[in-house]
């Protein structure tokens, strides 16, 4: 549903923001925004489900890698 999608979107942005490295952080923020906006008028339910599933998997990866990036941040 709509609020689930927005919830997922917010979570993706939140976790993308956690990256220490500027390049990773900006890349994931940009990709998240682009991907969601690209498909905002998607009407085919099965396609929507497929995209949401992909986004959920990405969220897992992003949140894990963001946490890892904080653990091994180099002192500079």
């Amino acid at each position, binding site marked *: 549903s*709509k*609020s689930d999608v*927005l*919830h997922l*979107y*917010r979570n993706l*942005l*939140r976790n993308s923001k956690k990256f220490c490295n500027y390049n990773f952080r900006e890349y994931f923020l940009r990709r998240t*925004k682009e991907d*969601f*906006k690209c498909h*905002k008028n998607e009407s085919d339910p099965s396609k929507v489900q497929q995209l949401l599933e992909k986004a959920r998997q990405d969220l897992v990866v992003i949140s894990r890698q963001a946490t890892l990036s904080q653990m091994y941040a180099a002192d500079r």
Partner: protein
Amino acid sequence: MRLLLRRPQLARPLTFSVPVNARFPHQSFTVRAFSSGGFLPKQEVQERVLSVVKNFEGVDVSKVSETAHFMNDLGLDSLDTVEIVMAFEDEFAIEIPDAEAEKIQTVEQAISYVASHPQAK
């Protein structure tokens, strides 16, 4: 053992009092503790919220007002609304929970939420 437990001799006692008239004789001042919960003044919140909205990508500055609705008046979509609420989080160094974030749909609601948030900076 007794020797170890004894308090070391200090050059001056641990507490001491200052004569009343010696303390800040002329000025009155306000003390603000860190725990006092500093709500930001509404005027300042309003200005900063408006500047965040005006600087948001794709917003027509001339349409921004205190009563503007993000989607109806400013032509943003629901994804932009999520982003703009996150921009408020960055601006005021707070975290807005999802349930609250969903309710913020107008500039006015954003101002009242931030103004009533004790940790907003």
